[in-house]
């Protein structure tokens, strides 16, 4: 059995809005193993995106995480991300856990070009490495040319960069880097950064990485923008990638390209991916395990083949039946996702469930392992699988 990289236990999240308290997540349980792609499906408004945001602890303002644990196993000791300070989390965000978003163009800052935005990530998390590379380059140029006039500047640059390497966050260097002539040493750093950025973009299979690096977000097509966003996420080789519906707004061909790209990169870097979507086709194509979410609860999680062949939870069954197929009448799930201000008592699916029993109204079902690696939270299977 492979190791876990992240486990979410009993995560509870509430939004304190004017209409009342929205119980967005109610005891969410998830496990992501090393090197796997976990799919998370569900209707809109089920709390899929919020789950991914709460893993990074960046839930927008009225939302508050009320309880639970998010354990991250990448370090020597497992850490609970919810108990950590902001400064510690900032080092994890983007470096160890990165995120891809639904609407790529809205998630790029319109006033900066692609090169700036990717190099910002690099300078935040891989500063030492970049400085080291620049220093090596300087050593090489010194070896090649022994011109005395150039030597002075290069020595100066080397000295400054060595200082920077010694203490990357020193305030005096920050101030010096704002003064025009003195910040000359930054040019060479920027050159290395640009090289690095172009290299990363090349890996994203962009046609013209040099041009894209200098382009602004509005000049990119949405497919290109999505690749740039993926490049930003993968710039620091994260161990966990949260992909929040990255292909939803793209047309099918681009969607396919992005999916193959994601799979290829996943194999190359060995990252685990949490892939959020409402498209069962994408899940079947990409993921190895699936979690089905409904109204802030994970109701079923199992292997992909298992879910498609043998769904247990009534909601998962209904979801699979509502995939449109030629020659069959179009089926939907009766009713709508309930308002989470006053969520249904007991099992949250009971008012739409064809198999609803009396116990479903009164009691919350437990999240149990009914088969090997197959978890369900439903009263139908409380006494084991029939």
């Amino acid at each position, binding site marked *: 059995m492979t190791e876990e990289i992240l486990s979410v236990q009993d995560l509870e999240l509430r939004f304190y809005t004017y209409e009342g308290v929205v119980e967005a997540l109610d005891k969410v349980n998830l496990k992501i193993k090393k090197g796997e792609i976990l799919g998370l499906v569900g209707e809109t408004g089920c709390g899929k995106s919020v789950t991914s945001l709460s893993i990074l602890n960046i839930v927008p303002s009225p939302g508050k995480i009320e309880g639970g644990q998010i354990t991250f196993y990448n370090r020597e000791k497992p850490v609970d991300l919810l108990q950590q300070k902001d400064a510690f989390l*900032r080092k994890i*965000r983007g470096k160890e856990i990165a995120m891809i978003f639904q609407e790529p163009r809205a*998630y790029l800052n319109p006033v900066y070009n692609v090169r700036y935005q990717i190099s910002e990530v690099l300078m935040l998390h891989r500063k030492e490495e970049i400085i080291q590379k620049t220093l090596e380059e300087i050593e090489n140029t010194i070896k090649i040319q022994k011109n005395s006039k150039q030597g002075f500047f290069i020595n100066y640059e080397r000295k400054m960069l060595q200082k920077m390497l010694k203490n990357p966050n020193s305030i005096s260097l920050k101030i010096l880097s704002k003064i025009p002539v003195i910040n000359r040493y930054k040019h060479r750093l920027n050159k290395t950064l640009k090289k690095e950025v172009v290299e990363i973009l090349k890996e994203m299979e962009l046609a013209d990485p040099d041009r894209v690096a200098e382009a602004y977000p509005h000049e990119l097509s949405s497919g290109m923008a999505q690749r740039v966003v993926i490049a930003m996420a993968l710039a620091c080789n994260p161990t966990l990638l949260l992909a929040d519906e990255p292909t939803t707004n793209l047309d099918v061909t681009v969607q396919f390209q992005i999916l193959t790209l994601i799979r290829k990169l996943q194999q190359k870097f060995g990252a685990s991916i949490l892939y959020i979507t409402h498209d069962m086709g994408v899940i079947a194509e990409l993921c190895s395990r699936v979690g089905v979410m409904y109204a802030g609860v994970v109701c079923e999680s199992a292997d992909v083949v298992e879910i498609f062949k043998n769904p247990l939870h009534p909601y998962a069954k209904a979801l699979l039946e509502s995939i449109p197929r030629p020659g069959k009448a179009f089926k939907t799930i009766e009713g709508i996702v309930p308002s989470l201000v006053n969520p249904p008592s007991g099992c949250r699916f009971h008012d739409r469930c064809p198999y609803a029993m009396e116990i479903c109204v009164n009691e919350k079902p437990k999240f149990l392992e009914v088969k090997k690696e197959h978890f369900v939270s439903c009263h139908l299977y409380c006494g084991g699988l029939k």
Partner: protein
Amino acid sequence: MNIRYRIEEFKKGMAPHISEAKFMLRRIRKSPLSIAGMAIIIFFALIAALAPVLAPPATRDPYMIWKDGSFTDPRPPGSSILRNPKALEVGYTTHIFGTTPEQYDIYYGCIWGTITAFRVGILVVGGALIIGCLIGIIAGYYGGIIDELMMRFTDVIFAFPGLILAMALVTAIQGNKLPVDFFFIFCCVLFFIGFALICSKILKLSSGKSLAFGFLGALIFAFIDIWVFNSPSYWKIVLPMSRLDKALIALTIVGWPGYTRLLRSEVLRIKQEDFIEAAKAVGCSDSRIMFKHIIPNAIYPILITASLDIGGIVLTAAALSFLGIGSPRGYADWGQMISFAQNYVNLRMTSWYAFFIPGFFILLFVLGWNLLGDAFRDILDPMLRRK
């Protein structure tokens, strides 16, 4: 060979900037009014830069207008210089634009008044921008109690009628010297650093929040020190301060709340945008998000209003001078020259030059900045740009 290669390299690197500049130039060329605005401002800038050549000073302090005797009635353009041998020596032959009552030379006043106008406009608007933007972004980004406190303070200043508050401040700042109490400043800085350190190290707040609290701490110290204890100063120097400087300080204090409100509203909008969430997900700190991600997106409307305001501030300063509490008597200032002529404004227009010429300068200057503000909007505003 090497140089040519380098030039090629440079061109390649600068290509996006060059195309951007070309795009800007095209936009500018399309709107003739913005060209007019720019032409007017460049014209005034040239006047200001060439003032010593155009109007060589005939007094010890070049900002003081030279006088030709002290005859009360104004004299028309082209009248001869009677009682100022120094001016004749410097090279003036006649009063080109005439004289004001009490015989101040209008030509000299108008030329050197340009420098004053630029100084007033740019210093006041710049100071107000810095104060307004700092308070606006902190209030808008953190929200909650910080926002409430800062915005209510802004409202207090906004509630006063601007010109009257400025007048009160000018008269309230006593003496013509500005005492700079280094001990007081040192204590303020100490309190700022102390509060910030306590917030960040002991209370474990984020850097932006702890800076805000440090600022608050310094303010509280200043308040207690000045108003409660009225503490004596230990190490203090005194800077000379003319009445115009007082007016500048007063106008800055009156002027910043507008920018604060504008920036805060923009920040509240941009804070909700998706790319800020993305910046957080990438691991940016609060201060980085504020100054690198929000400000460049929010600053354009503020820059546009600021360039419009430069004209307005010059008008307000002229009004202060007109009321007699702006620049000192005899200072090269358009508003003051009009105030000299206030008894000669009549329908027969017998001495029109005394108020019309400086008034025309003010009109042109304000008009130029307003047109330039429109041009800035065309060039800079990302919402209007690519249509």
